[in-house]
């Protein structure tokens, strides 16, 4: 009796957890809202391309090794319509980023906020939710 009831309640949990998936966009199939990432480094390459714009950032770890992050933004057309210009993102410039890591490859991340050395900040271009899912 108690086991059966427990099974029913366990089923309840599964259903509730799976329900919001119906409303997710394709962001969630590639990137993990539960893996927020951030870093500061130097822009090594900018691809003003479709279907997604990409900014590559070299981050030097405390031990001296360099990790290249491949940050995905929205479509280049969306980014341009937000008012960004190629001059705003130059290779060699210092940049900080926040985003969500790839489900399999953390360093392939959806960028949700990019902040330049002069303080200008671009946010919300990745398709990421504005806060990690509960």
């Amino acid at each position, binding site marked *: 009796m108690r086991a059966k009831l427990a099974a029913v309640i366990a089923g309840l949990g599964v259903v509730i957890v799976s329900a919001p998936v*119906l409303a*997710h966009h394709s962001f969630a*199939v590639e990137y993990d809202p539960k893996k927020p990432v951030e870093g500061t480094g130097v822009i090594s390459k900018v691809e003003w391309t479709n279907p997604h714009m990409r900014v590559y950032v070299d981050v030097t770890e405390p031990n001296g090794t360099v990790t290249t992050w491949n940050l995905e933004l929205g479509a280049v*057309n969306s980014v341009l319509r937000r008012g960004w210009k190629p001059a705003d993102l130059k290779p060699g410039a210092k940049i900080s980023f926040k985003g969500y890591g790839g489900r399999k490859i953390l360093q392939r991340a959806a960028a949700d906020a990019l902040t330049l050395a002069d303080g200008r900040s671009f946010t919300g271009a990745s398709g990421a939710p504005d806060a990690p899912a509960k």
Partner: protein
Amino acid sequence: MKKLALISLAVIGFTLSLVAQEQERARNADERLPAKLTGEFTPTASEEIAKGPVPRMPDGKPDLHGPWVGGGSNSDIEMMGGLKAGELPLLPWAKKLRDSRREEDEPYLYCTPMGVPRVNPYPWNFIQSVTSKGPGTIYIVHENGDAGRIRHIYMDGRKHPDDLLPSWWGHSIGRWEKDTLVIDTVGYNDKFWMDSRGTPHTEQMHTIERWTRTTFGTMTNDFTLDDPGALSRPVQLKFSAKVMPPGSELMEFICTENNQYGVAADIPNIYRDKGFGLEVKPEELK
């Protein structure tokens, strides 16, 4: 035992109501979120501009020039078309197939065309051509359709050919009914999904779009969806498009340029070997 059954029923009922609330909440949140938080971004005209009058062509017909955003399905054709959950009369095989499809496998993510009536957050436009003989073919151009795909709407009274090779956009003929542009399309292939849920269709699909610009900024699409292969009866859906701010233009969008979809999550391209199209023949799933 009876007590257990009652408790189970109560728990199941409670669960279903929670699920319904969650879905409703998620849908509302989706609509409420500003564009900047849902990734892609296409601005639309202010309310002041949008409520202006419908512009007219020299021949008096409505000028359908946008560019437009929306006006079709994207995440869920049933919900976005104005139906309640479960109201789309899918045949059992089609429902089974939809429920088995995963969003991560939608063909559109591999740069294939969206098909009809699908649109996404990117803009599109009507181009009403004028020739030496007067109004000519009307074109629908999609910024990301894919890519920059053009639909031809023949307005010269021709019929659909009998021997159409199924295609992503089908064969479209149009006519004006007062101020409404009516587009009748057949000849679709079965390779695109009607939404990212995976709602399927067959090559028997027949669509009728009724586009009416109701103000400067709004255009409705009364959409008849008929597919004896996938639906038990024709169904009537309704979508609405919004105009972009004056001066907006479509931009170039070449999807295959740098599509790295799937790498970050190691999602396999299930179409590489078998190609696009229905995963099973409808009769096998009956």
